[in-house]
């Protein structure tokens, strides 16, 4: 899932789709966290209670951050669409060198 997200960011040209792919990456992180929290870490040295708790808390924080990112990101995309009426990243290319 993480790899699909990364590939998507690299090959797609529409910022909204890129954005969806980034969300995909974050969700894959959440799944990873939950899987590790459920099935235990690869090491035997950790304290199981604290371990599971840390992973689940991490997921909640990641979701909150992802939501904040969506708000800002869609705002930026809207702003660009208003002033150019296109959001294709190949046409947003004033800055280069």
């Amino acid at each position: 899932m993480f790899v699909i997200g990364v590939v998507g960011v690299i090959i797609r040209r529409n910022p909204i789709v890129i954005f969806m792919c980034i969300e995909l990456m974050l969700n894959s992180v959440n799944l990873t966290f939950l899987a590790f929290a459920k099935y235990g870490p690869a090491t035997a040295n950790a304290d199981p209670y604290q371990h599971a708790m840390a992973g689940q808390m991490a997921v909640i924080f990641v979701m909150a951050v992802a939501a904040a990112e969506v708000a800002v990101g869609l705002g930026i995309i809207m702003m660009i669409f208003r002033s150019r009426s296109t959001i294709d990243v190949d046409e947003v290319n004033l800055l280069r060198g």
Partner: protein
Amino acid sequence: MPEFNAAFPLPREIDFAMLMPVIMVLVTGMIALVIEMLRPKQNNNLIVIFSIAGLMAAGVATAIQFGQPEKTTLVEMVLRDQFGLICQLLLVVACALTILFSETYLRSRRIAFGEFYPLVLWSTAGAMIMASSRNLLVIFLGLEILSISLYVLAGLARAELRSEESSLKYFLLGSFASGFFLYGIAMFYGATGSLDLAFLANGLTGNPAAKTLLVFGIGLMFVGLGFKAALVPFHQWTPDVYQGAPTNVTAFMAVCSKIGAIAALFRVLVAAAPMKADWLPAMMAIAMLTMIVGNAVALLQKDVKRILGYSSIGHAGYLLVGLLAYVNAPDQVSIATTGYYLLSYTFMTLGAFAVISVVTKDGRDTTRLEDLNGLWQRDRLAAVLLVVFMVSLIGIPPSAGFFGKFFIFQDAISAGLVPLAIVLAISSAISVAYYLQIARAAFVVETEPRPAMRMSPALRATGLICLLGVVLAGILVTPVQRFLMGTPAEEPMEASTTGLVGKG
């Protein structure tokens, strides 16, 4: 190390003195927002004054902790150590200086939105959080607070296509990079069963699968932080965003986001020191590439902000050399070297961008090299300041830039990283060319007369404080270093302490 209980650990006692700087900056931001809401469509002077006062208080709250022993509070979530304190103090100073010259600049660009100040303050708080934790989740949250505010700030000039574009690019690449960082954290968590970097050793013993996970995790974290610190090959966004964003935002970004990223990188590198054999060659290659590419590509640029963007990539490379030297030989090399370099970097970069912000025309940024022509005729002080900052960025003796580079060079050699030291010397030699180009542009007599551009008093003050910072840190090298090391107060040190605090 805490003792592990089956019960969820409650914070037994909270050391508020340690949390105070961050809280002060956050609250100042909130109050600034409230002031803006209460007095809409009026000038922002009150907000500026209030923000600077709040930042000064935060600076004092940080400075009084200097030299105190390392400590954690809030269940290991917050860590105080010398390097973190240096970074926090510099962030506060940098934020105050940015705010000081922003108001007039924003007015001249006709984007004097009061929301600028809360965003800058929160962004600073995010970077401060990054600098003061060893818990990866907290570092990640700090990173996001820093970045999300910066995405908005980069697009502050919303009527201008270039600003919007830089905002979009920064946003897409930035969240892409935080995805990597986060996945690295997840791997680390899987390997060690904890989010705290101090438990890295857990993953090294026993199960070999844990070691593999850990290597991946640390690698992905480097990618994410390397992006924020603008290390080659993750630097592509830097010049674009620096050029497109309003100049004061660029100044802020160049300093604060870099300090935050370097601080977080420092924590990860120090924690990962036991498995140094796995990553040190790769990091050395990255440091060399960063120094060479940053400085070489800067030679080809025609826009001052782009040149400074590439130069900041080069400086990130020098900073990485300092960190690597420390991690490689922590008993021979002091982290104060990197701290000192950050100090000089803060003043010279902020100063350079502040001077460049004077060259706005008709509410737009025109920052090609030719646009600096005739600066000497129009404003002597601006031209002189620009030359001083360039001299310091090059690293010519009495300036702070020289000592910063020199100490890093020395450290790299004594830590046995000779190739890095050689590349550092060569790339600083390359950098002379483009810095001189900027300085020369200011003295070329212009052919077509342009409207006089004068520095506003606030801008003058910012420039002079930065000048003072560069020169004083250069003259008082030993006291400043001793201050950064946090050694107990002595007579000659008092002067530099008050000097530093006074600037906050």
